[in-house]
């Protein structure tokens, strides 16, 4: 795998010999690596021991691979698809070298994610005028925290940012966002607890327009995707935003907790239906869970991942990069 070899080479290079671009890539890779240390641990160790204990590629090896992918929460359907296509590849190209097989595995995961498209993980920022980002998701996944981190990042990139406290339901939610706004150093538009969230958005948009804000980040209350009324409320929020600003929300980001299992697929389906989700923020990859369900979501619904978060600090967020992510999952195999 060319990309991995590049990263690998960089790790062995002396920083003085590197271009700035290379240093950026490396720093990002190290951040992922560190953030995913715990995640990687069991997965890579298992793969390693797996390959150590086999001398040929046989059915038992495929079965064990299947288990390893399942353990990463990559959805059952996607795993079956993945393993079947690995089988087919091995047969077709009559592969019997385990090293070659390892890179085929990585390639296959790439394929599932990339799908012969140029995947756009950048935010869809508007060239002129206000950009609105809407954050949605089930309860407790980290929407509010992610807004703080994304806002911080955008501000560092020179954007003028503002927040809208659309979670008017959960106790303490408005205060929580306000604290993040203080940390970022930006304005946060609030209405009292219990207000109509759509009206918060409306007001925030007017303010953002008047104050020439570049990016408005909108928080919403967590809701389970099965709650019909709450999903309707979200549709309304979405409607108001798109009515007030052309092409808005420019991105609707579904926040998914990396510890989520197969229910993540239902979440992606329902939220996409209600709000036309354009990207995923995968949170909490600093634990031991792997968040593999996002691969299944990409595979089955085509929604790309735009950000990953790996801690509670304001800087613990990175643009998603599939190479880095997979590198984070398997890096022990390459060292």
């Amino acid at each position, binding site marked *: 795998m060319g990309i991995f070899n590049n990263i690998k080479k960089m790790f062995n290079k002396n920083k003085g010999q590197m271009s700035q671009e290379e240093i950026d890539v490396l720093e990002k890779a190290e951040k992922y690596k560190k953030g995913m240390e*715990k995640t990687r641990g069991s997965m890579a160790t298992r793969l390693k021991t797996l390959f150590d204990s086999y001398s040929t590629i046989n059915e038992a090896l495929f079965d064990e691979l299947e288990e390893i992918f399942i353990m990463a929460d990559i959805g059952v359907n996607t795993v079956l698809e993945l393993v079947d296509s690995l089988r087919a590849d091995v047969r077709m190209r009559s592969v019997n070298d385990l090293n070659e097989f390892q890179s085929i595995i990585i390639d296959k995961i790439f394929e599932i994610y990339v799908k012969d498209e140029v995947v756009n993980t950048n935010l869809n920022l508007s060239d002129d005028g206000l950009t609105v980002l809407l954050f949605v998701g089930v*309860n407790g996944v980290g929407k509010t925290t992610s807004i703080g981190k994304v806002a911080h990042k955008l501000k560092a990139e020179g954007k003028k940012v503002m927040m809208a406290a659309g979670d008017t339901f959960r106790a303490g*939610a408005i205060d929580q966002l306000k604290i993040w706004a203080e940390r970022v150093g930006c304005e946060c538009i609030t209405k009292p607890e219990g207000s109509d969230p759509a009206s918060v958005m409306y007001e925030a948009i007017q303010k953002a327009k008047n104050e020439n804000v570049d990016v408005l980040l909108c928080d919403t209350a967590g809701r*389970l995707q099965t709650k019909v009324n709450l999903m309707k409320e979200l549709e309304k929020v979405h409607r108001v935003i798109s009515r007030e600003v052309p092409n808005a929300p420019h991105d609707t980001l579904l926040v998914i907790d990396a510890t989520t*299992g197969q*229910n993540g697929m*239902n979440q992606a389906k329902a939220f996409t239906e209600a709000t036309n989700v354009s990207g995923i923020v995968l949170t909490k990859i600093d634990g031991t*869970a792997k968040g593999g369900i996002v691969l299944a979501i990409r595979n089955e619904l085509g929604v790309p991942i735009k950000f990953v978060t790996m801690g509670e600090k304001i800087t613990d967020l990175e643009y998603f990069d599939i190479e880095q992510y997979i590198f984070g999952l398997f890096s022990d195999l390459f060292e």
Partner: protein
Amino acid sequence: MAFDSLSDRLQYALKKVTGRGKLSENDIETMMREVRLSLLEADVNFKVVKEFTNEVKAKALGEKVFKSLTPGQQVVKIVHEELKKIMGDEAESLTFKVQGITIFMMVGLNGAGKTTHAGKLALYCRKKYNKKPLMVAADVYRPAAIDQLVTIGKQLNIPTFELGTNFSPVEIVEKALQFAKDNHHDLVIIDTAGRFHVNEELMLELENLKAVAKPDEILLTVDAMTGQDAVNVALSFHEKLNVSGVVLTKLDGDTRGGAALSIRRVTGVPIKFMGLGEKLDQLEVFHPERMADRILGMGDVLTLIEKAQDAIDEEEAERMAKKFKNATFDYNDFLKQIKQIKRLGNLKGFLKLIPGLGSQLKNIDIDENKFNYIVAMISSMTEQERKNPDLINSSRKHRIARGSGRDISEVNQMTKQFEEMRQMMRKMMNMSPREMERMMNNMNQPGGMRPGTNVSQSKGKGKNRGRRAPWQ
């Protein structure tokens, strides 16, 4: 192919299985594959699934097949029984000190629902055990976590102890315990910050908190949507803290909640409560059995399988089938059947037990009340009429209507439906499996059943819209 439930999966798998009626080792293999996928789709940990399917397999091989069940149902039954065994029979209750202040400590990952459930439990214990709870805000890390608990406390009118974010959790808890003593609280519920089980520093903080608070319950709060990692999380928390119970939250969604099974199996810690919503009264004592059904994704079908074994006398069922076949089925048989069905409690569930019919019946509405009317009408028939349905002419119908207090149109409807049913059953009983399948496929098409199956259909309005069973 997506399946709603294990029974759907098994139905599908059974199409590939030959030799119905007996469980061969091969059949069991095929079905175990489906059981395995079904449990994995429910997020049961793959290691647990592996052990579990091996156990079920061993069990299924040795077991006699009930005549009243198809092999698929037989496997579902074994799977369900084994699941229940793991989940335990009954929810275990909370431990309270006989004297002095009882202390609970909520722990878990970020966003699992600790703060909300601290509130829910405080409310529950006040209501159910007449306790005077105090909540303690020991999450000094997450922005506004203290506000959140204080707000919940206000909503419930339960005092919350907080010292802002400038004290350590240990100091806060020490002072809170003193406060509780001074103010005659008999229950203290400590809300702690969310943390990863692999964060050593923060896990150590919990161990210190435990040493200070000496809690009677350490409740690990787990999001029911958790995937494969649930086992790691539960094991780490349990290892460090010796957790006494699990609160499974967000079960109001559509997650199958396999994490419950994994945690219980791997740690042995009982699940004590389930969270069923964001509102503070949406807390219920854990039902192991309901959870087992949910993981299998099959609602109440399973209990019906059990009930069916008790309620249906196998010989009687065979006699009945013969009667259907020869169309000697009369009103006495009809009555007997209805009584049997009523004993089963729920007709829709019962119909699901008919092989191949289960998945077709999902959208059919059945008014169970109608049965009582039918029983009344049949009871108003003479013995002769019951034995020989063809005797029943217009004047007899009027008499039956008067006798049962029903309208003549209802009697007409019932006799018509009885006829249709008799026809349909005879047809079905004489069908080859392939014909049967074709008929089922026809029934499954949009627009309902096709002509030629002798099944009438009517469309209801509003709530009851949907296909109806022939006897409605």
